[in-house]
């Protein structure tokens, strides 16, 4: 028994130290910073203020928040629209094909997402693969603006976050007994009716999980909007990054971070309210 206790301490202590020193303390520090005043040289004055939080509700920042949410929402919807047909299509395939295709979804996952996002520049830019093809085949005269706008950001977000939607949806679709689908068809349900009446209600928890795992990062993935938005489109993630690195207004950046964390918590609350299961996401 004594040994057991020792092992318990030895195995949990590093995790606890890690969590406290690298997650809890920085977060508390951010919280602390958010109530301080910014001085003219990019430093921090130890003077309590609430003005940073008032600035967050400034029209300019609310607009950025709205725009970020819209981009995240569109990203989430596109991911859903791609994931369902893909998962349902997989169910008719043999196990070998299924495993192969799921691996194909997973492999890009293993590469650095920053590098992958740079890859999209080659495809989307003015003299990139798509535009070169379209202009050389005379389908269009002038190259399309595929990046340095919201379109480019959404493509990058969908591409990066798609696996987070496919995996939970695929996993809940694959749990549905095939005979339920056959029974629905047998009773006269069209493909859309089968989806609406069988697939959707039986995979709702997978759908919630996926949406949460796509929407929340999509608000904050600043590097995608930096690279594919060309710095022209601000999302909350960029805004925060800029406050820390460019504008050197740490207190405002901290307030924005806390604000983002609060939004995330609200989303999780809503998710739990409408029946999501936190256990599927590792419990909370």
């Amino acid at each position, binding site marked *: 028994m004594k040994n057991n206790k020792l092992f318990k301490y030895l195995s949990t202590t590093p995790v606890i130290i890690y969590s406290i020193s690298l997650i809890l303390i920085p977060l508390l520090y951010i919280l602390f910073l958010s109530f301080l005043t910014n001085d003219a040289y990019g430093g921090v004055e130890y003077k309590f203020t609430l003005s940073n939080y008032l600035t967050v509700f400034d029209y300019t920042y609310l607009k950025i928040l709205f725009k970020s949410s819209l981009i995240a929402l569109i990203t989430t919807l596109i991911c859903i629209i791609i994931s369902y047909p893909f998962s349902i299509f997989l169910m008719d395939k043999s196990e070998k094909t299924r495993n192969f295709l799921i691996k194909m979804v997973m492999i890009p996952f293993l590469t650095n997402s920053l590098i992958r996002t740079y890859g999209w520049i080659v495809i989307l830019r003015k003299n990139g693969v798509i535009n070169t093809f379209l202009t050389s085949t005379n389908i269009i005269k002038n190259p399309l603006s595929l990046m340095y706008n919201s379109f480019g950001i959404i493509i990058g977000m969908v591409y990066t976050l798609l696996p987070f939607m496919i995996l939970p949806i695929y996993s809940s679709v694959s749990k549905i007994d095939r005979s339920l689908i056959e029974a629905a068809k*047998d009773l006269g349900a069209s493909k859309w009716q089968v989806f609406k009446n069988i697939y959707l209600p039986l995979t709702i928890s997978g759908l919630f999980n996926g949406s949460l795992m796509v929407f929340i990062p999509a608000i904050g993935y600043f590097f995608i909007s930096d690279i594919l938005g060309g710095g022209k489109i601000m999302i909350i993630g960029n805004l925060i990054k800029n406050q820390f690195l460019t504008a050197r207004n740490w207190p405002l950046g901290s307030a924005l971070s806390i604000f983002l964390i609060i939004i995330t918590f609200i989303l999780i609350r809503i998710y739990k309210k409408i029946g999501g299961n936190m256990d599927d996401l590792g419990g909370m």
Partner: protein
Amino acid sequence: MNENVLVSLKNITKKYGDKTIINNISLDIYEGEFLTLLGPSGCGKTTILRTISGLEELTKGEIYIDGVNVTNVDPTLREVNTIFQSFALFPHMTVWDNINFGLKMKKIAKEEATKRIKDAIKLVKLEGFEDRYPPQLSGGQQQRVAIARGIVMKHKVLLLDESLCSLDLKLKREMQIELKKLQKQLGMTFIYVTHDQDEALTMSDRIAIINKGKIEQLDTPKNIYRYPKTAFIADFIGESNIFNIEIKETTDKYALAKINEDNSLKILNNNYKVGDKLKILLRPETFELKKEYVRNSIKGIVKNYVYDGQITKLEVEVNKGLVLKVNINDADICSKDDTVYLRVPEEKVVIIGEQNEE
């Protein structure tokens, strides 16, 4: 029974790659008939059912339902319904919504739908369970919901895929009788798939024995039991003694069949010639057991004696290679190691083919 052909399979074949699951089957199923597809697992019987419902596409051949060629018609539009082996009830819908599902899909008017659902629920005796969810029901109740969901559509054909096999024995017996009653009451055509010969014999108007993707015999339960066409069927349906004989003498009416050096049987002559080598079937209940020698009997020694209440099961050794299963009603007539004489009425001997046949 009506003589209208309702479902007609014309030379249907189904292959998965090189594997032939259904091998050129033709079958007419009549209106109001209870037809059972009976066979061992993997014989293709469920696949036949699935081609009728449209869940499986044919490789070759045609299927007609009520005179319409439905070979290329989507399952959604075929006027048949299936009761699945797993029941396939929608777990997120109440009993009522499950039964209503098909009606909703076909956009049946609400009053009509409500009436039909109530009738169906009454028919399968599920009153009071309308608001339950399938996981809250017992196996037998789930079975009833599945049946109600099928019959509420008022299609002429219901396909049942091993529908009773997940129930326990007692419930199974009850459901067999109820299912048969229901079918007569509704006048529907039931096509029933099972590997359970008891079920097939109890419920069916006709049985099609399926083996290796072909129909081996199609007949009434009585005829299949009494006059199986092949050794496979004789062995599959009921208990049987199958062994070889050789025709030794013939007259106009009778023939003498030699079993071994000591035993011969008189059988009815059906154009047999002296020297014909045949396979014969004797059911365990066809023997009359005697203690003394009687004409037309087989002599043997009781090697095993099992008292089973209603009947007594014996194993009688005729010679080294031949042990006969014998069922008798009178448990006191003999005991183990007795020498007995088994009289066989000549009309009860069934010839099931020549010996070189498979």
